[in-house]
């Protein structure tokens, strides 16, 4: 490591690595140098002039945000000249800035307000009329109010550099400069809203949140996004039992500040008018609302009856329910109902990867690894569409550390903008293409391989064998589709798997077999919609569905139990990298119960001894009993992510035939996506995956 540079800031000595900027060196001393345009992780702009400091032997004030430290440098931040410069800058910024703080969304969390409070003067010398421009709507989620803009370029840079979307620019010059969208009067982009959150003032505001609340009126609940499998933390702003916004400004969680449209806005499914809020029981051919007692009684009776006469019972678990729910459900099925027929819709071949790795827990990559690895290989997945956080991480890694990224995909992907090699192959040709990269990959110091659901079974084994043959440290990510797809496997929602990838002694039917079995007596579906794409052969089967909405499957049910969403309950979920994180309930929806609570009530009605059905004791049971899940409780309790390292038993039979990736885009996401008005309101909906050909 290069020698440290010594300098003095406000009379206090500090040392910093060469290349450190004065603004960051000051931070080490606890000295705040105010700035608007400077933003960690983005390119330097020096547009706002707020960070001017005095440097000894420099004739003028210098911008601390672009000034690298130098040996013997003497910096002063608390001189009359600096204080005056800050006052002048704020006075200039406020010449055209409307003083509509009382109705501005940003009021209370506005950086310009804070700066004016701390460094500004109370009055202005400008008596001229302020330039006013009417606000513009760039998209259903992005509004722009030009007079409030202070031209810090943060939004432009996060979009161009952070996302690689290039949807925002600054047009015109001088006092009439303003932010412009890429399609004349509107945006065509990821609609992620990063530009809104990064805006230091209220120039860019959210179509979902604007004029709904003052920030201090909301309760802020940090929980895990319930859509894709990346496991982003979203901090939900809740007021009056409604979620008003989602963001992650405190950078907690594996995602830092990153969120896509789903994490930031798509929570609206929760308040959809078609949300089920009462149990339904079929009578006279129609589903009619009944009390919970009646509905649970009806289910318990039929379950007990079916079990007593040795009937065929099938249980379908969910890609979105918590680990606790999944664990309890398989226990309910196997011990309570005596059936081995339990499955879920599989979206990636996690067991194949874990089998191939044979217990090498250190070969599983984390989300953080994607930002630090020297090289990455993306196989059969369009990350920007399906795993937006991972696309963001790899791009940030390339921008900051020159990571070398290789892609092997069916169609063009966003990584093409910077990847060192991009191979296009028809489905099935991926492995050959990957193997052709061997000479280049062997020269890399390390590698993370991410592969989509198109790579399964023997292909996964071949991929791992290829990784082993490179002679460099290789880590893997098996990409799955939904928020707890990984946890569904981990908790044994598969006939051949017990929790922790142990072989099940009496494997029952798979999901497809359950649907096809003409003599199935009971089908219990929790948070899944298998009848959207398939039909149920057993016409007389008693069907119980737990879900948020009257899906195709729920419409066929005999009893429908309204379930709580992830934003309404506690528990843990595991992202596609195997990192466990905790959910926190943000609100309550009247009439619904969490799936775990429903299981508990059913168990009691059936007089089953399955243990307490509350998240904490069930998670303790998981930690104690499920191999690989002995994660430190303190990490989870403090909102962290703890990676699990399950090892699949070698005798687990490979079932690549059961893996069916969902081919969702950035703007779709299974059942929940269908009920989010925000997702379908944007112009880009439903998005495209290689022009209709899903990966």
């Amino acid at each position, binding site marked *: 490591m290069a020698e440290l540079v010594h300098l003095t800031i406000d009379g206090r000595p500090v040392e910093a690595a060469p290349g450190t900027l004065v603004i960051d060196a000051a931070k080490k001393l606890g000295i705040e140098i105010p700035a608007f345009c400077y933003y960690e992780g983005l390119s330097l702009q020096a547009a706002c002039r707020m960070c001017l400091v005095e440097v000894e032997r420099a004739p003028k004030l210098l911008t601390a945000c672009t000034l690298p430290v130098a040996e013997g440098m003497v910096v002063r931040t608390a001189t009359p000249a600096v204080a005056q410069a800050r006052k002048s800058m704020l006075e200039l910024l406020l010449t055209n800035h409307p003083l509509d703080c009382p109705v501005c969304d940003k009021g209370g969390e506005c950086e310009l307000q804070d700066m004016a409070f701390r460094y500004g003067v109370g009055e202005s010398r400008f008596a001229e009329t302020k330039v006013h421009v009417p606000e513009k709507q760039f998209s259903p989620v992005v509004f722009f109010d030009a007079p409030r803009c202070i031209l810090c370029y943060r939004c432009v840079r996060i979009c161009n550099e952070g996302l690689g979307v*290039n*949807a*925002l*620019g600054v*047009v*015109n*010059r*001088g006092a009439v400069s303003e932010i*412009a969208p*890429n399609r004349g009067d509107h945006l065509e982009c990821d609609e992620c809203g990063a530009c809104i959150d990064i805006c230091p003032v209220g120039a860019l505001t959210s179509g979902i949140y604007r004029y709904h609340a003052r920030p201090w009126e909301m309760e802020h609940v940090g929980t895990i996004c319930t859509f894709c499998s990346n496991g982003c933390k979203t901090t939900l702003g809740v007021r009056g039992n409604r979620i008003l916004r989602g963001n992650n400004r405190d950078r907690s969680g594996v995602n830092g500040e990153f969120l896509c449209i789903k994490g930031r806005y798509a929570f609206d499914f929760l308040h959809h008018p078609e949300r089920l809020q009462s149990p339904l029981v079929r009578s006279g051919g129609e589903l009619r609302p009944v009390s919970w007692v009646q509905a649970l009684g009806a289910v318990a009776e039929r379950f007990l009856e079916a079990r007593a006469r040795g009937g065929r019972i099938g249980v379908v678990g969910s890609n979105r329910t918590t680990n606790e729910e999944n664990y309890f459900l398989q226990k309910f099925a196997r011990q309570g109902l005596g059936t081995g027929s339990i499955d879920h819709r599989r979206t990636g071949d996690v067991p194949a990867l874990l089998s191939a790795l044979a217990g090498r827990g250190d070969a599983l990559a984390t989300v953080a690894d994607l930002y630090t690895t020297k090289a990455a290989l993306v196989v059969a997945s369009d990350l920007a569409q399906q795993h937006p956080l991972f696309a963001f991480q790899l791009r940030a890694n390339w921008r900051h550390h020159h990571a070398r990224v290789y892609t092997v995909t069916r169609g063009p992907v966003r990584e093409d903008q910077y990847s060192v090699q991009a191979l296009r192959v028809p489905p099935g040709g991926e492995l050959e293409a990957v193997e052709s990269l061997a000479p280049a990959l062997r020269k890399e110091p390390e590698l993370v391989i991410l592969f989509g659901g198109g790579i399964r079974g023997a292909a996964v084994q071949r991929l791992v064998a290829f990784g082993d043959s490179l002679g460099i440290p290789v880590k893997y990510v098996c990409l799955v589709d939904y928020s707890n797809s990984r946890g569904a496997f981990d908790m044994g929602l598969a006939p051949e798997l017990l929790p922790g990838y142990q072989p099940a002694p009496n494997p029952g039917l798979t999901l497809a077999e359950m649907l096809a079995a003409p003599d199935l007596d009971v089908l219990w579906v929790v948070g899944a919609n298998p009848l959207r794409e398939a039909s149920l052969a057993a016409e007389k089967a008693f069907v119980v569905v737990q879900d948020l909405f009257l899906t195709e499957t729920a419409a066929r049910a005999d009893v429908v139990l309204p379930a709580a969403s992830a934003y309404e309950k506690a528990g843990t979920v595991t992202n596609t990298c195997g990192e466990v994180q905790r959910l926190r309930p943000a609100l309550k929806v009247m009439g619904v119960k969490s799936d775990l609570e429903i299981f508990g009530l059913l168990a009691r009605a059936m007089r089953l001894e399955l243990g307490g059905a509350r998240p904490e004791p069930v998670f303790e049971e998981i930690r104690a009993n499920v191999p690989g899940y002995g994660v430190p409780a303190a990490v989870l309790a403090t909102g962290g992510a703890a990676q699990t390292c399950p090892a699949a038993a070698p005798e687990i039979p490979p079932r690549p035939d059961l893996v069916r990736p969902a081919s969702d885009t950035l703007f779709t996401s299974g059942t929940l996506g269908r009920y989010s008005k925000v997702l379908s309101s944007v112009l880009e909906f439903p998005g495209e995956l290689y022009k209709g050909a899903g990966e």
Partner: protein
Amino acid sequence: MTFSPDLEARFARLLESYPPGRRRSALIPMLMYAQDEVGAVTGEVVEEVARRCGVTPLQVDEVVSYYSMLHRQPQGKYHVQVCTNISCLLRGGDKLYEQASRKLGIGHKETTADGRFSLEEVECIGACSWAPAIQVNYDFHHDMTPEKLDKLLASLEKIQ
């Protein structure tokens, strides 16, 4: 979109004169040459230049809207640009602008009915040392006075 063979040759030379990966450096000259030939930086020109320089159309638009020498609409035969930035303003630039406006009977970014003149009040054109300055097409006119402006406009009027 295609340009004349001469312009195509010029573009080819232009793109070669920057280091590899720096194609975008050709942006401003390319826009100016294209404007000279096409008459304005039309939407089509923006798209084409963006493609050739490897930037987005929005990034081209940022540049076009910034510089007063680039125009999205065709201008008059004589495009009169009067600087009213600080140096010129202190030396009477604003008066010159008003005079030109009165004489030509048009305002900021307007064109006379016969298409002969267009007028624009511009930001600094880099001629502060000889303020106040006026630019007509590519020609600079320094140390302007009301009399010199009258003469200039009259002489332009006469040219056939």
